[in-house]
């Protein structure tokens, strides 16, 4: 799969488009206009002795051609233009209309000939094209385009109240194979992108595992990870599909995959909440999500007692910002207070989930992944500096809460203004953070931002680099660290980015920071990555170790090269920092 195509929708669009063309032709011919009827044209081609069959075959052929064009549209054109869907279809219709006018329609006239060969002149070839014929071909194709454009939309995701089919075993389990013990070796990780936020005010569910076909190809995905030499995989069971209500779980969405990971590896770092909630829990403004997710985490740890690594809530800052400040996901608000409320609820959930897991598995290890960000003011303007300062303080809020770091006055006051009791804030501040907590620091080329003269954040690219930004987080929290996400949207430049990130990790480790792992995120390409899944467009971004056909990308080869080169080295075969955590 190169493009995410909703095949059923495309087929329906094609059928309706062809039908719209035919209705137009019949209506205009009944009105006395000598317009082109493609079914009549097709049925008269060399089949004209059996008119009933010919008509049926021609109808079938025309519908088939409509479907083929609609699927072609879905693969190559949909989402490429920033236009309304119907207008996109209209623009696309220029292509079939041009071919119909200059190739197909004149050729159909040749096909009606009773001779085997004909001597053509340019004028003779285009002779059948009367102005009425050209006009009707243009109008009927415009109708076709408008129809397929109007019908074919939202190729990815599904209505929030619907559930896709659970995954199944497709093949016999590998005989004799078993999971490679990872011990205290450095973690060479990847992840299966598993975001599941809602958009369109909670009505439409984005589900990256569904869009990338992981629910179908999960066995192959795990095999590919093993082939590369991956030791750990960041893996997010679909909370919204599993957690049906208080005390109600549908484990069929995760049992087969967890069984396979337990048997064959890689070792999972289980990500229990990734940017979304089950619809019955609403959104991140709901103060009850902490208790609900605490119950879920406990049930999960009970069922899969062998799992050691957990990310209770992934990228709390990003989740709160996108949902409550940038207005893209879930509650889709644009409010600083709503951000603080979401951050508090997420941190509360993370803490409760960790505690619930520790009750079942006291030696559990928590990889608290967060997006590392930094805001640089562009100039000495006090207003610009204040915006950058606020953004830099805001990025730490969720981690400050879970790592019991004293809050700055601004964030403390913001939480209090949302009705959060000072005692509750103080309680978190005095909390004993689980000893086996790792700070996961994600980094992409847009994580460093410039606050420009208008006060807007602009991506800076790799200005200071992961080393500098991650060091800010190290200085603040002093927790063992892991590079838990990175990738590059330019597939050709990805190996360069991979090695440079790796050297950042090495340098930080050399500076004395306890580093336990590195991650290329993700195993496969991702969908709508550049627009943060805010619209269900279905564009594929080549950020994976493998594409969506599960063919290797060049960075997949580079990562294998890197792992082969370093995994056997003494410092990585036994990682002191991880050994210290595991003791």
């Amino acid at each position, binding site marked *: 799969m190169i493009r995410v195509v909703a095949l059923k929708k495309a087929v329906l669009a094609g059928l309706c488009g062809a039908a719209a063309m035919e209705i137009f032709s019949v209506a205009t011919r009944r009105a006395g206009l000598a317009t082109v009827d493609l079914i009549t044209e097709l049925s008269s081609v060399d089949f004209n002795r059996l008119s009933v069959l010919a008509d049926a075959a021609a109808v079938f052929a025309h519908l088939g051609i409509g479907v083929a064009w609609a699927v072609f549209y879905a693969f190559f054109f949909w989402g490429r233009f920033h236009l309304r869907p119907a207008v996109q279809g209209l623009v696309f219709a220029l292509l079939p209309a041009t071919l119909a006018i200059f190739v197909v329609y004149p050729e159909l006239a040749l096909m009606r000939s009773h001779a085997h060969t004909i001597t053509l002149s340019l004028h003779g070839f285009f002779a059948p094209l009367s102005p009425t014929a050209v006009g009707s071909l243009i109008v009927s194709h415009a109708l076709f385009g408008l129809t397929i454009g109007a019908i074919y939309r939202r190729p990815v995701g599904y209505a929030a109240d619907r559930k896709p089919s659970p995954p199944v075993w497709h093949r016999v389990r590998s005989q004799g194979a078993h999971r490679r013990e990872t011990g205290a070796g450095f973690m060479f990780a990847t992840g299966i992108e598993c975001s599941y936020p809602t958009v369109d005010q909670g009505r439409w569910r984005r589900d990256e595992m569904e869009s990338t076909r992981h629910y179908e190809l999960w066995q192959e995905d795990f095999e590919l990870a093993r082939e590369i030499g991956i030791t750990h995989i960041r893996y997010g069971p679909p909370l919204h599909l599993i957690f049906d209500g208080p005390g109600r779980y549908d484990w069929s969405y995760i049992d087969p995959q967890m069984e396979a990971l337990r048997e064959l590896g890689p070792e999972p770092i289980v990500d229990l909440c990734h940017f979304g909630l089950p619809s019955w829990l609403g959104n991140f403004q709901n103060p009850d999500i902490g208790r609900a997710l605490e119950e879920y985490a406990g049930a999960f740890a009970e069922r899969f007692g062998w799992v050691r690594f957990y990310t209770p809530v992934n990228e709390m800052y990003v989740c709160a910002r996108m949902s409550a400040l940038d207005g893209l996901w879930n509650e889709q608000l644009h409010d600083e207070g709503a951000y603080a409320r979401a951050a508090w609820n997420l941190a509360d959930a993370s803490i409760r989930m960790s505690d619930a897991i520790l009750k079942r598995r006291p030696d559990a290890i928590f990889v608290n992944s967060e997006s590392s960000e930094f805001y640089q003011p562009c100039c000495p303007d006090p207003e610009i500096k204040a915006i950058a300062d606020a953004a830099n303080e805001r990025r730490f809020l969720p981690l400050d809460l879970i790592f019991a770091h004293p809050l700055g006055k601004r964030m403390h006051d913001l939480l209090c203004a949302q009705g959060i009791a000072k005692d509750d804030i103080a309680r978190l501040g005095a909390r004993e953070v689980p000893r086996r907590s790792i700070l996961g620091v994600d980094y992409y080329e847009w994580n460093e931002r410039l606050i420009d003269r208008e006060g807007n954040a602009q991506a800076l690219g790799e200005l200071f680099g992961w080393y500098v930004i991650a060091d800010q987080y190290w200085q603040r929290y002093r927790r063992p660290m892991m590079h838990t996400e990175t990738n590059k949207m330019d597939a050709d430049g990805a190996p360069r980015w991979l*090695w440079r990130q790796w050297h950042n990790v090495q340098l930080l480790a050399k500076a004395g920071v306890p580093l336990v792992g590195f991650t290329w995120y993700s195993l496969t390409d991702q969908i709508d990555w550049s627009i943060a899944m805010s619209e269900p467009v279905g564009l594929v971004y080549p950020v994976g170790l493998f594409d969506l056909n599960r063919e290797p990308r060049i960075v997949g080869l580079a990562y294998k090269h890197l792992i082969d080169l370093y995994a056997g080295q003494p410092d990585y075969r036994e990682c002191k920092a991880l050994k210290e955590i595991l003791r």
Partner: protein
Amino acid sequence: MIHGFVAAHGYDPGPSQRPLLSGAISGILATIPAIGVLVLFGSLKVEADILGMSPGLTLAAGCAAMAIAGAAYARFFGRAANAVRGGWLFGMSFGFGLWAAGAVLVLPLLSGGRAPAGGAAVGVAMSLIVWGVGTGILVPFVHRPLHESLETASKRAAVGPDAAAAKKAPIREQRQKTRN
């Protein structure tokens, strides 16, 4: 523009793949049903007549042309050609393009304006569509056993540690100049 659309979805053919070989093999295999269609509609004889060649020679030339066309298809569509779900469609559109460009435009030019008509013209069009669908369906399956393994492909220097440096390393260039 066309390359942009294809590149947006297909990108390169894949670092461990052999697109030309798999496309050529698929293209030759797909000529088998396409020849059946040509024979069924009596188009083979007509094409041979137009080109002034024997049917056997016409077939041989057609197979060679389709091998090249298959290789061109797999190279042009890149990763898209590997898609099991969409391969039939990409191949069909390529076959349609070959018909529109080759049979409708180039063939009459080469033969002084002579072109197939009637049933023979239908056969030519159908055979190229069938060839395209066949090639599109076959490429994803043919190219798999032709892959270079991950093990050997990952050993290439281009994906190794040197990749961290800029493509044109200024320091090395400077050294070179100093030596000269």
